[in-house]
């Protein structure tokens, strides 16, 4: 039954269907390997499990009020979203698989409003400068970054190079 159905569907266009299926299979394989690599690279590496790390967090509310929090006992397999929820009251929208990430919309009652958003920053170890991270808080582990910040600011552009760093006048880089 199946070969007959397939033959009916394909009709006289065997070569076209073969090419389309092969290219389609190639795309699926490419995306599956990219997703596997993404999951692997955003997961906590093995040596970090079972230990604790020290992480410094800055919360800049954008109205002149800033708060530095020094946490010395952060489980090293946590991500930055988990840490943020443990130190503050967070409002977030969760997006399920395949992204599986939270969009943080409010911290301690300060909500995204119009062009004002919570932007996410980290200190790049190499250049000792702030960088707006290219991934969400769920994908940030503490093997790469030890000083992170949430900065509430007006961002009318998706281009993070136009954003201000969380500490006024501090150096900023676009790539780490």
């Amino acid at each position, binding site marked *: 039954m199946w070969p007959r*159905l397939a033959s*009916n*569907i*394909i*009709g006289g*266009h065997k070569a*076209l*269907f073969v090419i*389309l*299926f092969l*290219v*389609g299979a190639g*795309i699926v394989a*490419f*995306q599956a390997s*990219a*997703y596997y*690599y*993404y999951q692997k*690279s955003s997961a906590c590496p093995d040596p970090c499990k079972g230990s604790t790390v020290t992480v410094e967090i800055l919360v800049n509310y954008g109205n002149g009020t800033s708060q530095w929090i020094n946490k010395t006992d952060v489980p090293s397999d946590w991500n930055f979203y988990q840490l943020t929820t443990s130190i503050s009251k967070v409002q977030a*929208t969760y*997006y399920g*698989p*395949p*992204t*599986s*990430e939270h969009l943080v919309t409010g911290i301690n009652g300060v909500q995204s409003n119009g062009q004002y*958003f919570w932007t996410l920053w980290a200190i790049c170890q190499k250049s000792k400068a702030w960088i707006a991270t*290219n*991934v969400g808080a769920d994908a940030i582990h503490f093997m790469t970054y030890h000083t992170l910040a949430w900065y509430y600011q007006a*961002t*009318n*552009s*998706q*281009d993070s190079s136009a954003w201000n760093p969380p500490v006024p006048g501090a150096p900023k880089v*676009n*790539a780490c």
Partner: protein
Amino acid sequence: MTTYTTASVLDRRSTKVMITAVFTALALATNYALIGIPNVKIMDTLVLIAAFFFGLRLGIGVAVSIWLVYGFVNPNGVDTFLLLSFLMVGECFYALAGVALRRSFVARDLVKGTKEYQRLSIVFGLVGLLATFAYDALTNFGSWIFKTGSLYQDFVFGNIIGVPFSIAHEASNVIFFATVAPAIIVAATRLGLRTPLDVA
């Protein structure tokens, strides 16, 4: 009997502007309605349908018009001009896919009144996957361009970090292209809409 001449209504500039505006409005309305679901949009299917029935120029017109509005009036933030240019070029891939399908056996089968809907769905789904992959590869690259110091690294980083969004985009587009697009095209053909190639 309907006759199709070069001076027909569909060839008038005003009609083309109107069709472009209608497709753009439809795409924008559905985009804003689906704003809470990242990368799941009917817009790409609409661009393909526009190009399938009305040709490449109109399809590109729809693709560019949509992004001229959606790139600047977007609750998720405004795109930079550089990223916007990548998005517009990427969206034109769907117009190219629509024209390619129009020139293929798919359009001929439709005119003959085919009942092989599975074939239509499979071809549209696979072409949709191809066009969406090309779009994602290009726009993921565009969102990372000049950020790592090497164009190759920009491409690799962009496509690895963007992969969860690409998967959502490609999976949803395969479904839309395999179901919505053939349904609209079959219905429009039954109602008498013909592509210029059909009547040539």
